[in-house]
């Protein structure tokens, strides 16, 4: 067990390092420096600026310097507005985190409830309805769902105000973000619940006269949750990328929308910092899910 955890942590650290490397060198492959503006600067000024920001050193030294700063928690400054990126992340990440975590909770809760309901009422009307809807929702890209929700509820029906500083309703963004993972988790938990219900221990429990309630919640549901946990890891990556478009559409000022505007503005230091930050987050989340999974299911061997 200890050896396995160590191995996984080492792989995660290696992955984060590779991500930093790829990001750094890719961004430095883009032609043109940060001081190429429409108004041409004198060569002496550019030289001075390059020396000030260590841009005259070889790329590899620059990489080492960047990594050193990263370890100190310093992401540098934005190319476009000169703000410190650390401050931007500190300000906008909590909004994204709140959105993402709520969406994840909604998706997990509703997904397992719907999936288990479908499994328990197999081939009846609720089951068919749930399967139909979940199949439909796995085919709708999140940005389209978000735009349609915005159109329907904010503009046509005016049930919800459009997001601004005074009106911060998370309802629609969370709904749009959680739809796809919820549909997927529903399908997943339906199959795993059906699988659990057909196991021998369920038959034993029923033969011994365990109540239906206890059978479902104590024996079947707990075992059917294991595949759902495996899926939660990759799902965090989906939530993070999905939240970029959702935040842009609903004009929520989270980190995701900052990332998209950095891409549109070609703000390379911001793109670099946000990519590294979000990627590290995903790797860590994946690692935690993996370890949890092994912890929950003792049948899995540590190879």
């Amino acid at each position, binding site marked *: 067990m200890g050896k396995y955890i160590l191995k996984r942590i080492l792989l995660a650290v290696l*992955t984060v390092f590779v991500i930093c490397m790829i990001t750094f060198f890719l961004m430095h492959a883009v032609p043109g420096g940060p001081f190429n503006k429409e108004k041409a600067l004198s060569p002496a000024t550019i030289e001075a600026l390059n020396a000030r920001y260590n841009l005259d050193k070889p790329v590899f030294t620059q990489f080492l310097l960047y990594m050193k700063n990263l370890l100190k928690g310093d992401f540098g400054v934005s190319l476009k507005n000169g703000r410190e990126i650390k401050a931007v992340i500190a300000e906008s990440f909590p909004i994204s985190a709140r959105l993402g975590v709520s969406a994840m909770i909604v998706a997990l809760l509703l997904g397992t409830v719907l999936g288990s309901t479908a499994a328990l009422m197999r081939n009846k009307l609720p089951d068919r309805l749930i399967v139909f809807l979940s*199949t439909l929702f796995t*085919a709708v890209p999140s940005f389209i769902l978000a735009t349609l929700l915005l159109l329907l509820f904010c503009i046509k029906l005016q049930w919800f105000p459009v997001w601004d500083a005074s009106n911060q309703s998370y309802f629609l963004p969370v709904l749009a973000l959680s739809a796809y993972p919820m549909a997927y988790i529903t399908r997943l938990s339906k199959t795993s619940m059906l699988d659990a219900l057909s196991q021998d221990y369920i038959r034993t429990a029923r033969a011994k006269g365990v109540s239906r309630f206890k059978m479902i919640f104590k024996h079947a549901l707990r075992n059917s949750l294991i595949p759902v946990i495996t899926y939660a890891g990759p799902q965090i990556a989906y939530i993070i990328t999905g939240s970029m478009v959702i935040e842009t559409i609903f004009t929520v000022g989270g980190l995701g929308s900052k990332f998209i505007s950095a891409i549109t503005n070609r703000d390379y230091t911001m793109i670099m910092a946000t990519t590294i930050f979000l*990627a590290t987050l*995903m790797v860590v989340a994946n690692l935690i899910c993996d370890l949890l999974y092994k912890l929950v299911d003792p049948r899995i061997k540590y190879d």
Partner: protein
Amino acid sequence: MKQNSPLQKNPLSLQLDLSKYSAASFELATDEEKRQQDVMGESTTFFKDGMRKLLKNPLAVIAIVLILLILITIIVAPYIVPYSYEEILSVEGRRDKGAKNLAPFTYSKMEQQYIAKGGERFPHIFGTDEQCRDYFIRVVYGTRISLFIGFFASLIVLVIGILYGSISGYLGGRVDLIMMRIVDIIYSLPDMLMIILLSVVLNEVLVFPAGSFMARLGTNMVSLFIVFGLLYWVGMARLIRGQILSIKQNEYILAAQSIGAKPGRIIRKHIIPNCLSVIIISTALQIPSAIFTESFLSFVGIGVRAPMPSLGSLANSARGGLQSYPYKLVFPAVMICLIVLSLNLLGDGLRDAFDPKLKR
């Protein structure tokens, strides 16, 4: 008891006493009668059996019909509709400035005058966009491009995945170990972030000579393919390697080896047909995910470049006039959903029909 005489018939036996009959009292069974005795089902191949199961699945049949309808529309429509996707509408050689943001099946003032004079004008089935272009043909071309990207991206993934996975699976040992560690690292990279990053950079770095095939495709589309080729093959490679490893363990491979079959024959006759179904199914499911990714990138603004439309970029540009012209969002949105839904259903149907082991 006398020797050489026919056996004495037991009086209780029901057996016919042949001595009472001659050859003339028997007649040969006709071919039809022989066939009636044959209770075996018609012999069937793996492919035929799978197709039969697939066509019995109503959802899969609906999906196939939908896909065929969409394919026929996008192939035939450009020959019927007289507009092109980048053409700004004009009437009798004069630019039609009133043909902006028309609702479906309506005409602009200039067009109405032209029709009143007795001219013929093809209807704008989905209306027009903000630059006076026919929207139906733009959606048709957008669908073409999205499907093209989905198909070719999956093909790239398939080829790289099969090559890498089969080399790793065949050679085994240390080579396999190193190749799979590389796959592990690529697999744990957050793919969407890396795709965005690569697209941003490749859009700046790639420059093609004007007029070449690559330039016609556009840097965005080429970088999209490069990104798929670099990142998305790992899942396929893992799948193929796992398949080959498990097939190699089977008794029929051992049997083939023991009667002296050469490796080439074993690969052709035993290994490839056995992983074919898995390959086909995962390719079918890869296409919708590639379309998803493409539409996401176009939406973010690093996908297909204007004036070439893709479903994602059409949906994105429709956000501008969402309040006044919601139908401009609805058409590409419904198209994406239909394509992805039918491909997903077809993929699921194929899996149920061709690979009973995977069914869960």
